[in-house]
């Protein structure tokens, strides 16, 4: 809670994203939280100590990326020995990009990788020192379909014939409980569908569906069992078919519908498909980058998990194939692309990168919102939604106080 002695900062000359609208208002923060300016005025009887002129820009909550495999040369699944460096530098780099909170994402890996890596991917607060807040890992695979493995290594994939015990053997349930935000599974993989409710009950993690060939019937049951999200919609799932629309079809359900991540780099999903998905289920959209280690770096040879990846033309492919291996986009680019693709309003685009991912993770009381009491993770954007200034926990992050070291990559 903010203390009365903390300085009060006011953003003014801006349009603030609040209550599903951009409103001409000012925003106050104190002690790392968004505060009610009326309370400051009436209770503390004071005016802002610091005033920030937003020059007519938009004030938005910081972006939240719930799916990112790495950046700046680091890969969360591959850099097991340097995982602390990976988290530190990716967190700092993302912060400067305007992404103030994220879920570091691991591709399907062998159990020892989870034991090594997950303890470093658990929740940690954001700050100028730490970089973007870590919301817990997104553990993608290995309980996924070999037919829709994407850039995941076939040899690592597993089934769950023994139910929860297999999840425990793979990740360590305690490891999940403490460090993971959510896991992506394919419900048709043996044992997975029945284990979903138990997994949630035992660990409290969220469950997303992805890398799956499952039928409509199976994904509907998985959703009813608690799987509340779809991982990178359209990618690594069977195509929409009118008689069995599969996982994509969940967006057309008359009942409760899942949140869905969607990659808006312009190549993973065709703009038409983005538009169809969005207008089918606008409240569920979560923009994700699915970025990999080459994000913010030049073309060249990189890693995702154990797989070699070639990045050319700004796109990442499994070496020697045309299979995508994640993107190199930033979330801010995805937000701008999204408007281009769908004609949605700025409010809608911004909420897809702020409010919706926060709701998906159940943290919308403090992240992804500028309501009073929320964390003061704030962006100032220009009219074209380019990030101008970034604040985390009420402190401005700039290249002067946030230092990012790219991973030294071997020359290939």
């Amino acid at each position, binding site marked *: 809670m903010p203390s009365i002695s903390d300085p009060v900062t006011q953003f003014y000359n801006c349009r603030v994203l609040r209550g599903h609208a951009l409103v001409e208002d000012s925003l106050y923060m104190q002690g790392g939280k968004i505060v009610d300016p*009326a309370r400051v*005025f009436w209770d503390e009887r*004071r*005016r802002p100590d610091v005033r920030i002129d937003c020059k007519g820009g938009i004030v938005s909550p910081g972006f939240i990326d719930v799916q990112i495999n790495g950046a700046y040369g680091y890969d969360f699944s591959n850099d097991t020995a340097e995982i602390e460096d990976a988290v530190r530098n990716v967190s700092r780099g993302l912060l400067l990009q305007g992404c103030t909170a994220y879920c570091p994402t691991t591709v399907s890996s062998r159990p020892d990788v989870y034991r090594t890596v997950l303890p470093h991917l658990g929740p940690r607060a954001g700050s100028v020192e730490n970089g973007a807040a870590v919301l817990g890992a997104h553990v993608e695979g290995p309980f996924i379909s070999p037919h829709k493995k994407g850039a995941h290594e076939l040899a690592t994939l597993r089934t769950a014939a023994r139910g929860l015990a297999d999840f425990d053997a793979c990740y360590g349930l305690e490891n999940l409980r403490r460090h993971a935000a959510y896991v992506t599974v394919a419900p048709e993989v043996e044992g997975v569908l029945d284990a979903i409710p138990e997994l949630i009950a035992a660990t409290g993690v969220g469950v997303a569906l992805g890398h799956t060939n499952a039928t409509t019937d199976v994904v509907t049951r998985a959703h009813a069992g608690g799987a509340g999200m779809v991982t990178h919609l359209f990618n690594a799932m069977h195509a929409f078919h009118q008689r069995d629309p599969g996982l994509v079809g969940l967006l057309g359900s008359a009942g409760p519908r899942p949140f869905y991540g969607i990659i808006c780099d312009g190549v993973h999903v065709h703009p038409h498909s983005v538009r169809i998905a969005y207008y089918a289920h606008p409240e569920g959209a979560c923009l994700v980058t699915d970025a990999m280690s080459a994000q913010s770096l030049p073309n060249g040879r990189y890693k995702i998990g154990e797989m070699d990846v070639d990045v050319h033309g700004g796109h990442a492919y499994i070496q020697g194939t045309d299979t995508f291996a994640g993107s190199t986009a930033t979330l801010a680019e995805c937000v701008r692309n999204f408007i281009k693709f769908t004609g949605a309003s700025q409010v809608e685009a911004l909420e897809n990168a702020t409010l919706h991912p926060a709701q998906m993770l159940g943290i919308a009381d403090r992240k992804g919102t500028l309501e009073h009491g929320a964390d003061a993770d704030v962006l100032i954007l220009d009219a074209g939604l380019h990030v101008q200034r970034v604040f985390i926990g009420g402190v401005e992050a700039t290249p002067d106080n946030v230092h990012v070291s790219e991973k030294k990559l071997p020359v290939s």
Partner: protein
Amino acid sequence: MRLVIRDNAATVADYVAEYIKERILQFEPSAERPFVIGLPTGSSPIGVYKRLVAYHRDGILSFKHVVTFNMDEYVGLPRDHPESYHSFMWEHLFKHVDIPPESVNILDGNAADLQAECERYEAKIASYGGIELFLGGIGPDGHIAFNEPGSSLQSRTRVKTLAYETIIANARFFGGDVSKVPKLALTVGVGTVMDAREVVVIITGASKAIALAKCIEEGVNHMWTVSAIQTHPRSLIACDDDATLELHVKTVRYFKSIEQVQDEMIGRENLGLYGQVAGPLRYTVIPSGN
């Protein structure tokens, strides 16, 4: 009393905002000698506040040395309730301007001892040497602040029970639920308002037409509490055409003719803020005399 008639509510707001701005600027307020103003809530002043905020935004007007006293507040309504007058003033004026929080005075409807709160308020006003200008609006029954019909014209700040009609009228702000409308309010008295060195009242819309006629064309009467303005040495009513519907044609013509004479025969440049001739006449256009 002056009656200034404008075409509609927007031009009335233009006039009143400009007037208040000029009053504050000409007063040249300072830390030792602040401009003390009484302020209303309700629909009438919203346009005025909007324009005052614009003056502030454009660097024309500062509230650094302005002290405000609001007219009234509900009893028992949480301060942060959207319908509280604290919230109203915050939203429409205070959040937008540079007024120091300690210069803002609003009755505390949640005070443990309401009577003591009212006495404290009067004493606070007195400590500033009284109010320089009290801005007000009126209700359809001619009430000013919560001084409803029958209130003593000598009344001071006190606890008032709201008239049933007021409660019903206000229900629209509380989800149409009469039971949610506060039944008590703290309000300055008619005497408190009339003690100000100047009183400015905004009256717009056909629904206020009878009240306007009762307040200025008939006698001073506690059933139409704004009529007390008739005995005030420096008072101004700003109304729109719609609000004059119940006035005699003669009344309207009289007040319009005064402005006409001022405009056409004396010239605005020769007039002070109160309509007084400011000095030796300096004509830009020589009046023809017809």
